[in-house]
């Protein structure tokens, strides 16, 4: 009698667990007699592909229009209205994704990862503004980027920041870009998207921390025009460098600068370069000496950066989920009393061997070591170049927009009294 119960019990257990192992249904589907028809499972479709192509078309059209308005029409009002449209379309209608800034990471991931293929539309979002900037300057920032448009709306009382502060805060975008590239190349995270302060506003939905960040940014944006663009935007780094070599670029005056100084304070972003004609042999010699010193210092800065990067590489790799899991597994085997983290539960049920994970993590760690060294060296280079840029005073006779930092927003144009004959 007793062993019969045991057998029944075992059968019952098997009945419950075997099917799930073998993928069989525990409870067969009933044969309905009442003529009941089973409802169909609904699969709502995602946003159609042609709409993504429409976004690309809107991007191309608005960029062309922005370029025309800035370079040909020289119309600040036109730029303003176009930027409102971009804010509405790319910001509030498209809800921010995918934007050109974030696309940096998709491109990087696609370049470094074997498994990710970038959709063509995303590649377009990345490349089109770059090509336009290389041809005509940063007209994308002037009127097409929704982030720029948003910040321009709140910049009611911009104040000049001074060359040194501008230069030092201006290094943050390089840092941000470097980290974003490192994390994207190692398939770790898309930090540009993660810490995007505006997307939460477009969606009216974000964590408290991100809302706080956005609030601080927008409040400071009242006095510091476009704080994100100038001191955070990683795409801005690329645009800045392309714009320096652009084929055409907007100018403050439609004809010849007459040094009337009326535009001196016109730019809310401190992007106007003043004339530099003083000839002072003593000061010049001092400057040359400083430049030589900095040029000698530069390799040391790069090496020091690379060395520091190597030191912090395991902190950076801790962001990677696989690395985190491996470290969790190592510590969890020691402390048994705490509840098991879901990561470990999931890993155990996945059936992947621990050695396989560890081998994978070893390559990731190695990639991070290399990547962090390059990143560190890059930051050292940026630091050195920033110092050199502060010391160097190139000869200039006119008031001109700085090709790198100018957003081509056309705000300064109306200050110029010169009329094209």
């Amino acid at each position, binding site marked *: 009698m007793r062993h019969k119960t045991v057998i029944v019990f075992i059968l019952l257990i098997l009945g419950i667990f075997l099917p799930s192992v073998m993928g069989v249904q*525990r409870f067969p*589907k009933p044969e309905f007699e009442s003529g009941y028809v089973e409802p169909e499972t609904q699969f709502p479709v995602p*946003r159609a592909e042609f709409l993504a192509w429409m976004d690309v078309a809107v991007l191309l059209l608005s960029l062309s229009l922005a370029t025309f308005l800035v370079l040909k029409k020289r119309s600040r009002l036109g730029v303003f209205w176009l930027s409102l449209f971009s804010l509405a379309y790319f910001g509030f209608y498209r809800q921010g994704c995918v934007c050109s800034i974030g696309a940096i990471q998709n491109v990087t991931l*696609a370049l470094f990862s074997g498994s990710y293929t970038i959709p063509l539309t995303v590649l377009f979002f990345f490349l089109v503004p*770059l090509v336009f900037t290389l041809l005509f300057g940063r007209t994308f920032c002037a009127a097409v980027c929704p982030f720029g448009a948003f910040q321009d709306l709140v910049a009611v009382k911009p104040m000049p920041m001074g060359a040194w502060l501008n230069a030092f805060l201006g290094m943050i975008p390089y840092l941000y870009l470097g980290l974003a590239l490192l994390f994207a190349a190692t398939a770790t995270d898309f930090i540009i998207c993660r810490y995007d302060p505006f997307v939460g506003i477009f969606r009216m939905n974000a964590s408290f921390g991100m809302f706080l960040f956005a609030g601080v940014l927008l409040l400071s944006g009242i006095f510091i025009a476009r704080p994100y663009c100038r001191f955070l935007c990683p795409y801005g780094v690329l645009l800045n460098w392309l714009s320096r070599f652009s084929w055409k670029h907007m100018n403050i005056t439609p004809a010849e600068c007459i040094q009337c100084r009326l535009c001196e304070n016109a730019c809310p972003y401190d992007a106007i370069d003043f004339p530099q004609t003083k000839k002072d042999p003593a000061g010049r010699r001092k400057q040359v000496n400083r430049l030589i010193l900095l040029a000698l210092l530069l390799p040391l800065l790069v090496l020091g950066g690379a060395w520091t990067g190597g030191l912090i590489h395991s902190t950076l790799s801790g962001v990677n989920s696989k690395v985190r899991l491996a470290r969790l597994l190592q510590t969890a085997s020691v402390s048994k009393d705490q509840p098991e983290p879901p990561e470990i539960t999931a890993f155990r049920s996945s059936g992947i061997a621990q050695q396989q994970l560890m081998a994978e993590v070893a390559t990731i760690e190695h990639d991070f070591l290399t990547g962090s060294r390059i990143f560190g060296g890059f930051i050292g280079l940026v630091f050195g170049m920033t110092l050199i840029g502060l010391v160097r005073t190139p000869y200039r006779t006119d008031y001109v927009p700085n090709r790198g930092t100018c957003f081509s927003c056309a705000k300064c144009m109306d200050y110029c009294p010169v009329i094209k004959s």
Partner: protein
Amino acid sequence: MDKQNRRQFIRTGIRWILFGGMALVAGDLIFRKGEPLFGKNRKSGPTVWQLDPAKCIQCGRCATNCVKTPSAVKCTHAYSMCGYCNLCSGYFKPETKTLDTGAEKQLCPVSAIKRTFVEDPFYEYTIDEALCIGCGKCVKGCGAFGNGSLQLQVRHHLCDNCNDCSIARNCPSGAFSRVQLTDPYLLKGFGKKNL
């Protein structure tokens, strides 16, 4: 003037180099492995986020980590897999004795599952998507003692398809991945679903 010209020349040269660099990157990405990103036979097109129910452990983070509130992840019922059980382990709490539909008896914290009588002894279970928060409690129950017909899925009419899905980066089981737009669901028991 000479200096000006030389500067101009260097600038033009660098401009062409930059153009070339961008063209190289674009070309590499578009024609990688000889499989162009365009045309009829392209291997890969636009993607959307989806979670694999086979990997999901119903940790509850789908409910809390989506940028949308309530989450774009919902319980999806694969009716064709359902046993229409009277004692549904996805509907009732495990300790339940009497099978009435009081809210305190239900696993679902928001009573998003509707239980309707079909015929003796079978009941149909439907999900009210407007209520469901994607917590996965029912999915866990159904998977543990039932057929596993209740499954979590990203519902694409609700999902914003973020460039970086904020559930994906917090999912402990790595269940999230980018899937092809043309095949956007990974429901068990359905095979490929070309929409």
